[in-house]
């Protein structure tokens, strides 16, 4: 599979009222836990992909590749 870009960003806050696009004028932290800063979220997303891609970049282990090829060559009946 082509590794798609994450869609974690741009941030899509839950409970946001439709049409409320006033991100720029929102107070810095109305409720401490309510909303993370955009740069913090971006950083979390970046770290998350680093951890995940560390495994993805290992590719397909030979025994799993063999398994798929072997089963694919069997009759599918």
């Amino acid at each position: 599979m082509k590794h798609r870009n994450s869609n974690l960003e741009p941030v899509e806050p839950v409970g946001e009222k439709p049409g409320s696009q006033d991100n720029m004028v929102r107070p810095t932290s109305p409720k401490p836990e309510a909303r993370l800063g955009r740069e913090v979220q971006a950083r979390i997303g970046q770290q998350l992909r680093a951890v995940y891609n560390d495994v993805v970049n290992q590719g397909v282990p030979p025994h799993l590749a063999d398994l798929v090829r072997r089963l694919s060559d069997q009759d599918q009946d």
Partner: protein
Amino acid sequence: MKLDPAIRDQVLSTVPSLRAFAISLCGNIDRADDLVQETLLRALAHIDSFQPGTNMPAWLFTILRNLFRSEYRKRRREVEDADGRYAETLKSHPEQTGRVEFEEFRTALAKLPSDQREALILVGASGFSYDDAAAICGCAVGTIKSRVNRARTRLADLLAIDSVDDFGPDRATRAVLASGGRS
């Protein structure tokens, strides 16, 4: 009739991300590889139920997650991985700067409730849409959104990130000091 090579290649090319997802669920690389193997056996035995043209990764992720869940229920009474065990599961590590940060993040990720970690991985790392993630987890889209948000908030708490500056070298230095010089 043999399996269409195009379908086979779709399965093969999903294996790397399937493993990454499995490791995030199991917290253990050997168990994760067993789970992926079991998933591939199951999937190829039932390949007729895959509709060509639909989302192969989502189909395989769903099978893997269901297998994990039924397995987990069976093993529930076994000792669960201690906090941070996930951080020790991988053999290769990026050699770039930020290694401490990387390990710290992985440890924090392992401490999330499993439903939140799963949602965050599917959406934030595997690149699934909220709709696909909801289908994979068998829950409502709103549930996925709320889990992802809670996961991010919890991670920020665990990592004590108040601003982007906290990710700099000073934080890495503090983490080394806090570990008491263990490496």
